[in-house]
């Protein structure tokens, strides 16, 4: 078995911004895991490695500006490449939003999910070419109006 179990994006203040689960778990369990992991990662200082043993999995994480990206992988998996999975995802977001920031992900969370789905399915990397992945999203955008047009974003 080789796959990512879940991906979490959270801010330096510990606010969860995106969660993607590739294993089926009850909501309660997910919430517990999120709390635990956010706390573990935020308590680590800067000069440490990007890897933390957690239960029988391994957490691979990296901070981009104000956001932490964290993947849980299996013990035998390739840690360095997982770091680059995160980086490639950031690049895809960046390419789509143009200089992506935390707010983009908050208010366009559905796009963040769509982009992730183009890149990873069931915890496995589907498409590593930046061009193909972004093109898929842009194609689908052609099919829809811009989100702002119809969404009154809640203001909090």
């Amino acid at each position, binding site marked *: *078995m*080789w*796959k990512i179990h879940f991906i979490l994006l959270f801010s330096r203040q510990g606010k*969860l*911004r*995106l*969660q993607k689960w*590739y294993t*089926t778990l*009850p*909501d309660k369990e997910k*919430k517990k895991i999120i709390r635990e992991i956010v706390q573990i990662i935020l308590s*680590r200082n800067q*000069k*440490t*490695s*990007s*890897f*933390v*043993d957690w239960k*029988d999995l391994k957490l691979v994480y990296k901070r981009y500006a104000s956001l932490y990206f964290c993947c849980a992988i299996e*013990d*035998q998996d*390739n*840690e*360095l*490449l997982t*770091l*680059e999975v995160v*980086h*490639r995802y950031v690049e895809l977001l960046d390419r789509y939003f143009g200089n992506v920031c935390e707010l983009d992900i908050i208010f366009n*969370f*559905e796009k963040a*999910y*769509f982009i992730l*789905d183009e890149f990873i*399915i*069931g*915890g*496995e*990397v*589907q*498409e*590593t*070419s*930046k*061009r*193909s992945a972004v093109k*898929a999203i842009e*194609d*689908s955008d052609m*099919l*829809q*109006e811009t989100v702002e047009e*119809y*969404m*009154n*974003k*809640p203001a*909090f």
Partner: protein
Amino acid sequence: MKGKSKEAEIKRINKELANIRSKFKGDKALDGYSKKKYVCKLLFIFLLGHDIDFGHMEAVNLLSSNRYTEKQIGYLFISVLVNSNSELIRLINNAIKNDLASRNPTFMGLALHCIANVGSREMAEAFAGEIPKILVAGDTMDSVKQSAALCLLRLYRTSPDLVPMGDWTSRVVHLLNDQHLGVVTAATSLITTLAQKNPEEFKTSVSLAVSRLSRIVTSASTDLQDYTYYFVPAPWLSVKLLRLLQCYPPPEDPAVRGRLTECLETILNKAQEPPKSKKVQHSNAKNAVLFEAISLIIHHDSEPNLLVRACNQLGQFLQHRETNLRYLALESMCTLASSEFSHEAVKTHIETVINALKTERDVSVRQRAVDLLYAMCDRSNAQQIVAEMLNYLETADYSIREEIVLKVAILAEKYAVDYTWYVDTILNLIRIAGDYVSEEVWYRVIQIVINRDDVQGYAAKTVFEALQAPACHENLVKVGGYILGEFGNLIAGDPRSSPLIQFNLLHSKFHLCSVPTRALLLSTYIKFVNLFPEIKTTIQDVLRSDSQLKNADVELQQRAVEYLRLSTIASTDILATVLEEMPPFPERESSILAKLKKKKGPGTVTDLEEIKKERSSDMNGSAEPASVNASAVSTPSPSADLLGLGAAPLANSAPPPSSSGSLLVDVFSDSPSAVAPLAPGSDDNFASPDLASSEVVSEEPADTVHDADELFHKFVCKNNGVLFENQLLQIGLKSEFRQNLGRMFIFYGNKTSTQFLNFTPTVICSDDLQSSLNLQTKPVDPTVDGGAQVQQVVNIECVSDFMEAPILNIQFRYGGTFQNLSVKLPITLNKFFQPTEMSSQDFFQRWKQLSNPKQEVQNIFKAKHPMDAEITKAKIIGFGSALLEEVDPNPANFVGAGIIHTKTTQIGCLLRLEPNLQAQMYRLTLRTSKEAVSQRLCELLSEQF
């Protein structure tokens, strides 16, 4: 302030939720646009961390919309919020079915993503047949193929039974040749997972993967265009291919093998080239491939040259400025340490690793360093590594202390040449990290000290000195109390550790300790009464004091009362018998190792251990025969904990040892036979009603032996259970054997409500048997009350090999009648087996050495029981020999080896059992250095299958 804003948020959200709810419930049907808007809002609220309990139906409705945006939001809601066992799944499945059939690649993509995201069994049932067709259809678009491959992978992981193998599998393998690298990447993941479970079916993927990999690693850095990542060609695909190859042994075809070796060499060479970019992404991607290549090299474990190169490369990384690389190098080296080709090369880095332990700032990295030191430890460096780990323990993070304690304890035991070093190490452990020393660890040191008389005096002296410290850990008090209670006499000659000083020292700790420790100390005191009669009155005074006799804790009070009474009424002889030194513990796998395995979960620890076990004979294996004091130990109180070990419940007491016994059960958890409480009839295998009826107690004095062959034979591979049962009497057995000695507890249960009188069990050996089997029994109370149970101990010494079994004759009066019955006592030659692990090579060498026709006995027989491999294995192990895996070229055969210990000689035994399923027959071959032994073992074992 924060609370206030949180409150405001909740208020705002509740208002919004109420609004959405009213819209959904309103009379006016919502148009698609509004539905989408509100479903999207619900998602947003959910992602803020609030619970959402409605809106699912509206989301499902969106799935069947023709508008892409509505469909997309519907699918997103479902993948985030619908868990796999939701009742909505049927509706969702319907919508998915339509989209899959739409031939619109965007819609198909959404549907496939949704299946992969939810991945439930219901979805597998609905789509596992359909998706393979989409995957291999000629007209499917590349992007859909990619999604289909990974979607199928997800379903296979959830419900492998629902994904049918078939024609499509061979076509999937050929996707490795696809032009589109994205398709290859997705397909490789699928193939890898399928190949793990069905290696034969996907065997052709090996050569395809090698040639694909070869094309990638030899390509110029820009050849692959979009699939080049920071100047590294297709790192994801490379890693996945290397992963796939790890499902297989090295390729058999020399051309493929050569090509793969070239690839691996190229990857190692590239690591030495200057980087093409300063960006961390470049080095990460490059090293990701390198580490995966090293994993493959380690997995193959067949090319010494590559293994040593890998080790050197990792050695460079150990000193790298990037923390991540140091971490990964330590981790990778751990597995490298277990290869015989590279173990020595890994060992050369010991100083660097020790330095990492001291200087790394990241606990994750230090943890890896501990793991590596553990993995590279062998007899040559054990003292250094243990010393460094102890050193580190003083400052180690709390999160890893317990694990380090376990590791130190294991290494100290395994590589102890000098047991004084072992004792020192464990006491140091308790001193430095007493709180983290689990029961297993201190039980183990006691087991070892008791089993090795060469270290007992030293242990007594050392614990005595350690206890001098004004503040010492309670675990030390436990170990100290136990050891002084057993061996305090060995240091009592020194006036500085006279009996009274020993006692006062222990008693000075008494009041600070917890109840279990105090209970243990009370047992030590009563042992002192026996060891040191001169301080008996001092101890009696302590036991007599109100704080003991009237202690609020029942256990302590009971011990004080019983011990005081025992010390007052028992003669010195009885005291000496009751409080005799503990007999040696049976050798078994260290319970600490089991604990570490449990802690780390399955994986590296187990593997390493197994490999290491082969490399170095561990202490358990090489322990010299300890002298067993064969006389029985009975306990002063049924609730005595450590002192009560191995002793059965007191005569006439309730059958199973009460909860008090459980204190040590853990230590023996590996060995089901040792401690399992014997309650009459408790063992299902011996459920007896049908057998009871076949045994009729003779009303007249008669001397027929109740052969009860079937029961007798069951005991050949077991030590505990019911030997005999009729309407009046049940006889249970519990026995332990070690080398040429054994002890059997026989339990006689009176099933009636009437007393048995003149109850006289006698163990009878024929003249022949008497010379080879030495049995000692003690008489039992001639009166057995109705419903009561009495116990008898038989001490057994095997002098030389023997054929027959002793007879147990029982005579008693029940009502007005005289009862007389005899049963065979299952003391059989194989009980004196000591298992011997050996390599395939050793086995065949010895097999050949025993080729004299007189040494071999063979039997071909019909199977009497269903031919189940697992049961057969268990029986061979229960028989006492080691079960050797991967020795016989035919995996269906079973091979075993062991040594029969008798007082006069040791007889090496090899056995081979060949089942023939079709004929329902077995052929059993025994080879030993003695014909009679081969003969007897063959007879005994043939009855088992």
